[in-house]
């Protein structure tokens, strides 16, 4: 499976926050063979362990979250329409005409209705609020009442495709494309003699408050951890301080208030020594990633954060560069080999 095929396979899986088990079987089927041991948790995480074969080897955990933003049905309406609420942060201004999967008893497709211009009230400058929007399913209310219920989850329906310059576009690159960075690191390390046991943690519930990383991380009990997430790249509307963080320049290693500076420095040295492209960013806050919970697991775990730069985050047209995915894999492998 080449990198594009792998990214397509992983990112087209649906795993809305809190319902990550939707993707467990396929993950196990496609990638289970890469691990010595696999376990899943009650809080939506899929964890694979790859041992180095050495006694008392330290455990290095790589975390990427499996869950994605989505919607939850809150009302089945007349005429085959559904009212939904958001799971995670959604940009409502790109929802009109967007397609979704509705994960009822049967998986069916739907389209966010757009109000025809002649029906818009006032000057058309009203906010597009999710409370005013509906999903058109093209089904009868009877069918929907049989197959969908209040609480049924929905996810974006979008294929993953190539753009120019080794760029790709699709849904839920946040954060499934980072699962591919971990798989890529495991590929690189497959025939290498290393001194750490690797834990690949595809955690649940990140978008709804870092639920899975905290609990799966507790079980896995690592000695070191690296969170791999996406970060907003520079776009024309970005502030000046983001100007250097761009797609194609490598993984973005974060100096933050909630990560370990010694581990981050070790990470940067390993990446530098291996001649792998990377970028750095200073994030004084909590980073909005699993890094913040991994660092305070049990009695504390030195944690670093590396991110794949991304455009159009939390839309069905997230855009990333496969060069960055590859370079993050190489960076993670370099860190693992530094122990």
């Amino acid at each position, binding site marked *: 499976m080449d990198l594009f095929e792998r990214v397509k396979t992983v990112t087209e899986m649906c795993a809305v926050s809190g319902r990550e088990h939707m993707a467990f079987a396929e993950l196990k089927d496609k990638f289970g063979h890469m691990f010595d041991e696999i376990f899943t948790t009650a809080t939506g995480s899929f964890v694979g362990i790859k041992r180095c074969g050495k006694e008392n080897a330290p455990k290095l955990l790589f975390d990427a979250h499996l869950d994605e933003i989505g919607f939850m049905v809150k009302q089945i309406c007349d005429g085959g329409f559904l009212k939904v609420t958001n799971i995670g942060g959604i940009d409502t201004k790109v929802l009109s005409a967007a397609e979704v999967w509705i994960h009822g008893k049967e998986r069916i497709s739907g389209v966010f209705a757009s109000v*025809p*211009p002649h029906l818009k009230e006032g000057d*058309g400058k009203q906010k*597009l609020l999710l409370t005013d929007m509906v999903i058109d399913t093209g089904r009868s209310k009877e069918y929907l009442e049989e197959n969908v219920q209040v609480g049924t989850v929905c996810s974006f329906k979008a294929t993953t495709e190539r753009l*120019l310059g080794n760029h790709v576009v699709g849904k839920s690159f946040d954060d499934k494309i980072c699962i591919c960075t971990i798989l890529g690191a495991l590929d690189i390390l497959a025939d290498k003699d290393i001194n750490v046991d690797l834990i690949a943690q595809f955690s649940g519930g990140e978008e709804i408050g870092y639920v899975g990383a905290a609990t799966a991380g507790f079980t896995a009990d690592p000695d070191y951890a690296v969170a791999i997430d996406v970060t907003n790249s520079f776009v024309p*509307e970005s502030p000046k301080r983001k100007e250097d963080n761009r797609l194609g320049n490598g993984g973005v290693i974060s100096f933050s208030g909630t990560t370990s500076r010694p581990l981050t420095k070790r990470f940067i040295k390993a990446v530098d020594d291996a001649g792998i492209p990377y970028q750095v960013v200073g994030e004084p806050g909590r980073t909005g990633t699993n890094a913040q919970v991994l660092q305070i697991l049990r009695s504390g775990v030195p944690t670093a954060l590396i991110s794949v730069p991304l455009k159009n985050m939390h839309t069905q047209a997230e*855009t990333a560069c496969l060069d960055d995915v590859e370079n993050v894999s190489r960076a993670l492998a370099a860190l693992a080999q530094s122990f």
Partner: protein
Amino acid sequence: MLKLTEKLCNLYGPSGLEDEVRNAIIEEISPYCEKIYTDKVGNLIAYKKGKKSTDKPLLFAAHMDEVGFMLQYISQDGYLYFDTIGGIDNSVIGGRRLVIGENKLLGVVASKAIHLQKPEERGMCIPISEMYIDIGCKTKEDAKKHVSVGDCGVFEPNFEEFGDGFIKSKAIDDRFGCAVLCTMIKEEREYDTMFVFTVCEEVGCRGAQTAAYSLNPECTVVIESTTAGDIYGVAAERRACKVGDGAVLTVMDGGTVYDKQFLDKAVTLAKENSINYQIKNTVAGGNDSRAFQTTAKGSRVLAISAPVRYIHSASSVVKKTDLEDVLALARLVADNGKEI
């Protein structure tokens, strides 16, 4: 007809660049026409011999073009700024995928990301002038190797069957009408009939105007797609029409008051033959009828339309039974049209 509708919907054909659609239609109908030619502005005109000849053949019209986008500026960062070809509501553009230019490059429409929006900007539609297309190029030089100012785009082809008997696609307006005309041409017709596949409807019914002058029809039937506002929460009197209720006949829209006798005839034919039909209940929109009605000596006009939700978006939704009703009524009008 469904297969043909799918094929035509997935083609690339913004106003002024209808070649791909025209070529596909020529291939489809050539063996069934007495005469077929492309006029000076790009309209495709076909004459069909009927069982009976007539000196005043009916004209059936559908437009080949679809709404789209035209590139206006390539930024230093390699982003493509654009404006729309035809009317596309701002709210359905952001986040969509487009195919651009002759090489059919994939691009996505981006605009100010949510993390950069001020609270008062959240949920607000962004003006087209602040949206841009990302094709994966990082510099102006790189982008210029692939696209040029003036290149056009359309929504990414995405035809699929949907729900209970629905279709979801871009460009149902009016490739569906083209499919109806093709189907009618392939069948035996009672009378000699003229058909025109027009260009540039979406930018002001320009093809229809020259076709009307050249063909000088006595009566014209426009096969179209029209906005169905039957979405949840919209009052019945504001819906215009409703999917599933059959072919839409229009008394008046934003451009035309339709011919009374012709309309009455269509209603009678629908009733006598148990074809589902509905009368559009708003005065809005417009189509090639206006051009046919007002060009040269003028023509009696009738529009038979399919009710389409989310028209002019990437995900228009139409019901298959409505398409069948439009085809059935169009056939009846064609084969009884002499008696208007």
